[in-house]
Every structure is written in structure tokens, then in C-alpha cells.
């Protein structure tokens, strides 16, 4: 596909080859995608309420071509992660992300989704959704006001404007790998990390047994 776009089939000066057509096409293509970003209807926590307010009459993100919030990931372009991501929830979020068709974007709304937020120290809280899925825009705030969210979405549109068909990942030759879904073990586990988890747990066992052994020897 990208091969075809690079060779338009009529004469253009060699120094401009592959540029004129591509850039204008990029513009149209980006404009099209940027103006019809359909968010996934998916609120996680407090920030989700502000997202609903943004969708409602006062702020109304339909003005940016986002009027249809899709409850199905298969029909949506942008996932607004609006709220605290917990360990119990992250497998579902990764699954939803995998189910979204390319091109897809992720907005981390609020302190929690960006980096853990006020609940970061909690045992069930993930320190930012970007530990598991790639994030395009981060919006600080707890919660970001609807206008701050709009500002973030505009930032996302600007980012889309800068993309080029040649480079975007969904037109590359290699297939895009799905992100492995984390497993709920004694704690959340990334399947890619099994080896290091075992190593860590073994190391812990050894250090525990050696520290337990030392006082016993001393006593003897």
C-alpha cells in the first residue's frame, strides 16, 4: 500500500518525487482521522464523570467530531482512560486496547491514569496505564476539568496532524503484535516477565531462609 502511494504514476520532478502527493494526502488523511475521533465509552472513576460532563451540553465534545461514544472497542478510535487503573481491571483494559482497530490512540486523563495519582501507594493500583499500553497524551489534574480534557484532546488532534502515512505503524510491513494480557496471580503478572519474576521470588526465598538461618546459628 505505502509503495503505491510513493509512486504516483505521473511525472513529477525528481527532487519532489514522493513528496508533493504524500504531504497533501497526509493532510487530508490526518484531517479525516482527527475530525472523527470516536472515543470508547468507558469511564473508570471520578475522572469518568468529568468525561461525561465534557460530553454533555456545556462543553460538548461533539464539536470536535467526537459525538458518538462507542460502547464497543471495535468501533472506536481513542480510548480515554479516565480514572484509577487497578490491577484487577488492567487485564480488561489491555484486552479492550487489543480489540480496538488501528489507528488507535490512548489519552491518559487525570493523575491516576497518568502515573498512579493520589492512590498510587495502594496495593491494587497500577502506577499509570502506560506501564501496560502506550499513551499518546497525558492530562494532569485530579480531576482535569472538562476544559482541561478538551485541551488534551486538542493536543491529540495536533499530534495526529503531524503524522505521516509513510511512518504510521499501521501501514508498516510487520504485523502489529497484540499486547499480552496480564495475569492475576498473587500479584499482577506480565506474561513477558515470568522468568524475572521467578528469579526474584527465588532470590527472596533464599535471602529469607539465610536471614532466618543466621539467628538460629547464633543461638546455637
Amino acid at each position, binding site marked *: 500500500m505505502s509503495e503505491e502511494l510513493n509512486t504516483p504514476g505521473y511525472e513529477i520532478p525528481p527532487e519532489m518525487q514522493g513528496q508533493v502527493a504524500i504531504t497533501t494526502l497526509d493532510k487530508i488523511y490526518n484531517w479525516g482521522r482527527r475530525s472523527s475521533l470516536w472515543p470508547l465509552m468507558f469511564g473508570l472513576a471520578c475522572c469518568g464523570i468529568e468525561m461525561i460532563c465534557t460530553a454533555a451540553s456545556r462543553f460538548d465534545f461533539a464539536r470536535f467530531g467526537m459525538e458518538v461514544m462507542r460502547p464497543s472497542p471495535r468501533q472506536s478510535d481513542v480510548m480515554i482512560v479516565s480514572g484509577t487503573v487497578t490491577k484487577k481491571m488492567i487485564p480488561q483494559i489491555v484486552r479492550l486496547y487489543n480489540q480496538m482497530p488501528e489507528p488507535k490512540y490512548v489519552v491518559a486523563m487525570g493523575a491516576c491514569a497518568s502515573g498512579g495519582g493520589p492512590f498510587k501507594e495502594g496495593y491494587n493500583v497500577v502506577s499509570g496505564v502506560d506501564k501496560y499500553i502506550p499513551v499518546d497524551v497525558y492530562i494532569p489534574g485530579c480531576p482535569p476539568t472538562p476544559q482541561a480534557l478538551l485541551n488534551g484532546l486538542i493536543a491529540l488532534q495536533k499530534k495526529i496532524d503531524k503524522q505521516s502515512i509513510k511512518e504510521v505503524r499501521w501501514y508498516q510491513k510487520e504485523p502489529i503484535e497484540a499486547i499480552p494480557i496480564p495475569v492475576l*496471580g498473587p500479584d499482577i503478572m506480565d506474561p513477558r516477565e*515470568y522468568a524475572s519474576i521467578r528469579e526474584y521470588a527465588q532470590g527472596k526465598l533464599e535471602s529469607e531462609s539465610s536471614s532466618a538461618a543466621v539467628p538460629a546459628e547464633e543461638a546455637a
Partner: protein
Amino acid sequence: MSELTTIVENTLETRFPEVVVRDERKGYEGFIIQAEKLVEVVTKLRDDFGYDYLSSVTGVDYLPEGKMEVVYHLYKSTGGSALVLKAQTPREVASVPSLVPVYPGAELQEREAWDLYGIHFEGHPDLRRILMWEGFHGHPMRKDWQEAYYEEDSKPYKSRWPDGEVWRSEDKNTFHKNVDYPAGFDPETWVPDGDASLYAGLGRVVKPGNGGGLGTEQVVVNMGPQHPSTHGVFRMVVTLDGETITALKPVMGYLHRNHEKIGERNTFLQNMPFTDRLDYLSSMSNNFGYALAVEKLMGVKPPERAEYLRVIMAEFTRISNHIWAIGFLLNDLGAYFTPMLYAVEERELILDIFEAVSGSRMMCNYFRFGGVARDLPEGVYEKIRKLVYDRLPRKIDELDLYLTNNEILRSRGEGVGILTPDQAIAYSASGPLLRASGVPYDIRRADPYSIYERFDFDVAVRYHGDIYDRYMIRLDEVRQSLRILQQAVRDMPEGPIQEGKPQYQVRVPPGEAYGRVEGPKGELGYYVISNGKPNPWRYHVRAPSFVNLTPLEIMCVGNKVADSVAILGSIDIVLGETDR
């Protein structure tokens, strides 16, 4: 304490000598009951003394004494103050008898205590983990359980000042994530529970075909945690026979943010902004309950003007919450978005007031111990006046005209999802859910707090206990709230808004307190234990959204699957509070 409760208390000790002893610890109230006799005593209390409403069940870990305590708060559904019972059990083999046979409302709360404290409830029909997942290592609320990012037992942390050096907690973790694994754990051999134990409890039946009839099989359907109608990350697992629900299990914990564990590390004041994030639609009410609980311990009372400001803010919260709930209930019924948009418009105007007063639209953090954070800025009083005297009554009437007689709402709502008064009390339902079932129990009247005695208002009550009545009762309550607001705005005196100087280190004497308010969703209670240190020893939230889910199954069984969505909508839950 009323006279009646004193009589009951005196007879309790004489009727159960040695089984029931008074809790003599300083600052504590109630009775300690021998665990083995617990069921017997509470059955008596329920049947003979009228304590028919079990409000809260929670565990407390007394690590230094090596024991666990389960604390029960009992009430009469006719009103009055609490009877506090405690059962103690050793830490290592913590086990007490389950109260589910006596009060079915204990079901979810006991599961929570099992999950977080590892207290085994003997005789519980379905004792599984509830907020964490099956297979999680340890019981996280135990005092000696430490999370991956553990720093210190109490805030403020020493690393922040004076020789701070900025770092992110994940950079110090081996995996650069908030994870930790038990020693010797091998992920390759791990078999995740999945939801095996959950599905096992659903009891599916396969009916073979006989003669002319077709064979049927029940199917299990998962709704959520990402589902447009579950109001957040809530999940229902339903077994269906055709389209009829035969069993339903609520699954939660997808937003479990460890509120209580963090709360026990915070200082008393630091918990205030965290309470905002419980029921994030009504942060002012959350502040209210917590302030009451701690003020009870501290023995302070806010000045007059602060009391009025508190009531005004709490009632505004109720209005904004109820119209939001109505909007979303209609969403669930298929009136997609229009009623919600109308409701959100009024809510925005209320939020404008919150924002002007407290600085934030949702996370108000407005209450302080012994007062409120700041007085009304200029011009806000006028705005409040116009809103409560003119605009809101008009708009509520419009909403009424718009929806109440709508034939679709009536036919979807009337007679669906019925909860009888007896069931409602037994299952510890509270708030609009309880009152729509014909039990006129409103804490503002039944056990008055703050200055609610002064206001003239009626406890809204409806008698059918179906979805439609739960819709109607919200309209009624908004109207009553407007009445309260009008009186409060009229009578609000001038004066100080804070008792004493504002302080960030409050001194809280040792003891326990249970502060409860009638939140928009029901009884919101805070159980706080202080041991004289700057941070609470135990901080528990009795969340109405959580407890109100206990009767979800009995309301849904027998109805169609599409109704379960509407029934859930009519309970009006907020996940921040359900999962905490």
C-alpha cells in the same frame, strides 16, 4: 443515648451474664460478646428488642494485642442510636460465626472482612474474596501486611523533607511497577482461578427435552466490567433461563483503590480530600460524615454559620446527585441521553457554586474539623438564593412533567424489581432504596445530626418498592431538599465559620466513633478508631452503594435480563464508593 437504649443495655448484661460484657476500654462503647454465642444474642436482640437493622460489619486488627475484632452496628428501623457489638477472635485463626442467617445484609460486608482481614465467617454461604481477586497473596488490611511501595507506617514520610530527593516509587521497584511476589513463587506453575469459584456458585441447571418440549440450557452472561449500563466498572454475572434471570452475582473490586489502607496511614486531616473520591458525585456529603465522626472523637462543635453552610452544601449535593441518578436511570431504560443532558445542565449550575465556594467542581474538600474551609465568596449567596427559590423548583417541575407520566417509564418501572419492606430491612438497604420500599427511615430524622432538627421537612416514602417508585422517591427527595435549602438560606446567621484556629495537626483523643449521615445514596458511615496518634488506627467506610448491592440478586431474580440494568440503575451506585 436514649432512655430505651439504656434499658436494653442494662437488661442485656443481666440476661446474658458472662456472655455479654460492657466494653470498658477508654473511649469505647457497646458490648463485647463471646464469639460462640454471637448468633444467639443477636437473634434475641432482633426478635425481642427490635434491633432489626444491621448497619455495618467491619474487622479491626489489634496487632499489639494479637487479636482481631469484628464490630457490628445495630439499629432499630424505627429510629434511635446505635447498639455496638464486638466479637473478638485470635489473629492467627481468626474466625467468628456468620450473621448472614440472622441478617442477610451482612453477606457482602462479611466477605469484605474476609478478603481484607482474613477473618473467617463460619456458616457464610459464599465466602469468597470480593474486592481483590481469588489467589491474591495475603489479606492486605492486616497491620503487618505491606504493599510493594511501602515506605512508612504513617505520613508524613521522612524522605520528602528536609533532604528530599525526588524519585518515583516505581523506580525503586525491581519490576518498575507496583508489584511484589511472595518468596519462592513460580509463575509457570500458577493456575489462575479465573472465575471458576464464581461460576461454581451460580448453580446452572440443564433441563433435558421431554416429549414435545425442547431441551433448555441455562447460560451464564457476564455484564461488565466495561459495559455502558453498569455505571462504571461494575460487573454482574447472571444465569439466564431464556431471558429470565435465575441467579445473579455482583462482582466488584475493579476500582478498589485501597482507600482504607491509605486512610490508616494518613493523618486525620489528610483523609478529608480522600473522602471526596469515595462517592465522587457527592463529595460534600462524604466530607460531612467524616467530619462528624472525627468531631465526635474530638468533642468539638462547629459554629452556627458553619452548620448552616454544611447543610446547604449537603442538600445541594443531594439534589445534584438525584437528578444525575434520574438522568442515568432513564439512560438505562433507553431514553438515550436527553433526560441526562437536562439533568447535567442543572447539575453544572450547582457545580458552579461548589467551584466558587470550595475551588473544585467535584472534589470539594470543603469541611474541616469544627467548621468549613471558607466562607461564601461575594455574589454566591445571591446565586444560591435564586437557584433554590426560583430556578431549581421550576426545573424539577419540568422534569416531573417530562418524565413522570411517560407510559414507557411506567410500564418498564411499575412492578419490576420489587423489594418488600421486610426484605429491605433484612438486607440492610438504605437511603432511597429503603424508603421506596415503604420504610420511612431517614437518618436526618431517625438519629438527627448537625442541625437537621430545626428544619421543617418530610421524610419521603413510597410503598411499592419497584423501579418506578425509586424514580419517584428521588423527585420527592429533591423537593424536600429544596424545602430545607430554602429555610437554611433564609435563616443563615452571620458569624465565624471555624471553631478555634484552623490546624493541620489535630489532636484526637483515643477512642472509637461511628459518624453517619444520610448521604444521597443511603447511610454513609465512618468508623474511626484513634489511639491518640496523629493518624487513625482504624478507618472504615460503611458505603451505601456497596451495602445496597446485597439485595440486588433478590430484586433481579425472576425478571428479564434487560430489567436488571434498570434495577441496577434504580439503586444508584457509584463505583468509587462500592469498591473504595
